[in-house]
């Protein structure tokens, strides 16, 4: 009681701050702690270590090596497989998502949602094994195709080649696209299409002027997510290749956890930092598009 009286006499700025802190910041503290501890701290530490030599002195050497062969080819291949697998999966995935969400029965939608969830998370050794069993040189599908007159393995095809890996990646990229793009389709309100029709727009006009511009930012966002998933996939590629198809995640794995390389841990970390930079660069066009579409949505 007494303390309250004394405090009541003082200017209440401190209390106002406390109140705003409790109201605005405190609920976010658990999240901030998690983000800080599991995201910001590791990234900060990664960047710091990537500039260290083995003797713990400051150096640019790790980055100099990181942009030379064979690591340069690793980046080129990783970006290529990220872009290609995302591009090939994005359009059919988006169209499939549209038809499932607008035309499908609720039972079909639920089934597809569950299936996509499972398939999008299939990766690593099990996925590689599934493809060996189906499309491997002794695979079942390979034999069926051969009996139909198409010998997959007459050329230099293999699941461990770029094309092979691309096919395997599509297996999880397509369902992933359906999962991440469906909410955008759902958010397209039926009223908009009805309103457009009432104002005299035909189906084509509606899509060109309303549907596609509204879906475009989500499409790009989904595309980027797919790119990131293809760009950074590790376990599947590791199970299918033996180092002849340089990919950055595999090179990092080899540097951090190999039996051969000599104390090049910090080079591995520099490669990791370059991967973060590439991912960040990929997000910039998205931010620009997002800003524009936000304007439309408000207006």
């Amino acid at each position, binding site marked *: 009681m007494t303390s309250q009286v004394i405090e009541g006499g003082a200017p209440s700025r401190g209390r106002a701050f406390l109140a705003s802190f409790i109201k605005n910041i405190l609920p976010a503290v658990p999240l901030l702690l998690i983000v800080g501890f599991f995201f910001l701290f590791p990234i900060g530490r990664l960047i710091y270590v990537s500039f260290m030599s*083995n*003797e713990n002195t400051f150096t640019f050497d790790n980055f100099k090596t990181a942009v030379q*062969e*064979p690591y340069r*080819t*690793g980046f080129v291949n990783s970006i290529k497989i990220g872009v290609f697998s995302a591009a090939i999966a994005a359009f059919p995935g988006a169209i499939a998502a549209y038809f499932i969400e607008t035309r499908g029965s609720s039972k079909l939608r639920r089934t597809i949602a569950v299936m996509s969830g499972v398939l999008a998370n299939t990766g690593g*050794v099990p996925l590689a*094994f599934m493809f*060996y*069993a189906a499309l*491997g*040189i*002794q695979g079942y599908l390979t034999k069926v195709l051969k009996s139909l007159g198409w010998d997959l*393995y007459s050329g*230099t*095809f*293999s699941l*461990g*080649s770029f094309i*092979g890996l691309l096919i395997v990646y599509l297996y999880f990229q397509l369902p992933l696209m359906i999962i991440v793009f469906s909410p955008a389709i759902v958010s397209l309100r039926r009223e908009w299409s009805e309103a457009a029709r009432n104002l005299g727009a035909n189906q084509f006009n509606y899509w060109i002027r309303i549907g596609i511009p509204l879906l475009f930012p989500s499409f790009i966002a989904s595309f980027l997510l797919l790119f990131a998933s293809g760009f950074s996939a590790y376990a599947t590629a590791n*199970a*299918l*290749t*033996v*180092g*002849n*198809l*340089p990919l950055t995640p*595999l090179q990092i*794995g*080899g*540097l*951090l*956890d*190999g*039996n*051969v*390389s*000599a*104390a090049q*841990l910090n080079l591995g970390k520099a490669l990791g930092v370059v991967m973060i930079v590439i991912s960040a660069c990929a997000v910039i066009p998205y931010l620009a598009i997002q800003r524009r579409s936000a304007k439309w949505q408000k207006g």
Partner: protein
Amino acid sequence: MRAKRLIAAATAAAVAVGIVAIATPATAAIDICKAKNVKEAGGLDNLIKAAKKEGKLALITTPRDWANYGAIHDAYEKAFGVKVTVDNPDGSSQYEIDTMKTAPKSKQPDSIDIGPLVVAQLTPPGGKPLSTPYKVINWNDIPNAAKDSTGLWYGNYGGKLAIVYNTTLPSVPTKAADFAKPEYKGFVGITGDPTSSNQAFMSVLAASIGNGGEKNLSDVSKGLALFKAVKAQAPLVKVNGTNLATGTAKLGFMWDFNALGIIPAAKAAGLDLKFVYPSDFVLQAPPYINAINAKAPNCANARLWQEFVYSQNKGKTAAQLTAADLKLPGSKLFALMQGGQNYFQQSGADPIMSAAMTKKKLLVPSLLDFKVPSTAKIIGPATIADVLTAREQIISSWASL
């Protein structure tokens, strides 16, 4: 002035050392954590007594199906009543080094088993060694090229590269140069990425000596050329247990000492795998390396484990030890147990002391059903310097092969 101060300091230090030396009676001087050989540990009986008291041995990345390690673990556990734990059995040598550098005390291993290519990391220039010196009783029987003269590390067992193949292949491969035959197209490969896997790395060396590079082990260009020729027909497949058991991979190099683990697994899947040594040149790879961790949590077991792994005894395995045997005093029990070197020998690996053991007639027979053909010449073991040069070649050209 400075010189005078130095002398004063030196005198003080000398006096201090003298006092310590006088104050400590000889019998109490046993500190097993600092013992550099069994004598400094108070003799084998004392070491075994201390190890039994600790009751724990922490190992790292020594899988049970690798070079007969499972049988060695079992014998050690049963004889000395010590719980053997193995952290991350299928981990890499780099994992072992990183664990020694960064793990908390409770996760530190007592003893490590690492590939020859990472040995240099045990002794960082200008830094403190990660391992601590120890010389086993049979130290002199370890070839000089395979050990650090101060005892910081020592070779343990080596392997030869054998050709593993599926019997459904249209013909039987007999040498590395056969890999490029068109009839094997699409089925030939390597155990992993030679820039990160030791077995794959040695496979490139084995390919090299089988393709005209047998004169110079530090130059693996011939091996790279052979794999390039194979790859020109079809991408290299990964030769591992799974791919061999599904028929995806049918031909490649593998450690001879893993044959006893691989063949039955493939047979269970209905496939017939065979191992043969190349008929022309067989690569004797540099040995895997043992060392005691400087931060070993169980000092006595860390040392007793070395003595056991480097024991040349013929004798009883875990299953053959009787209850009466287990009551024997430490060194007597130790003497009637089969030593680690003979367990490696059984798996088909080459115990590091095989030359000395052959002379002493202590080697037990190997359990492998294939032998080095009389036409073949054994090349190697490659020295650490050789493999380091070869490594640069492989790192710079494997990715773009």
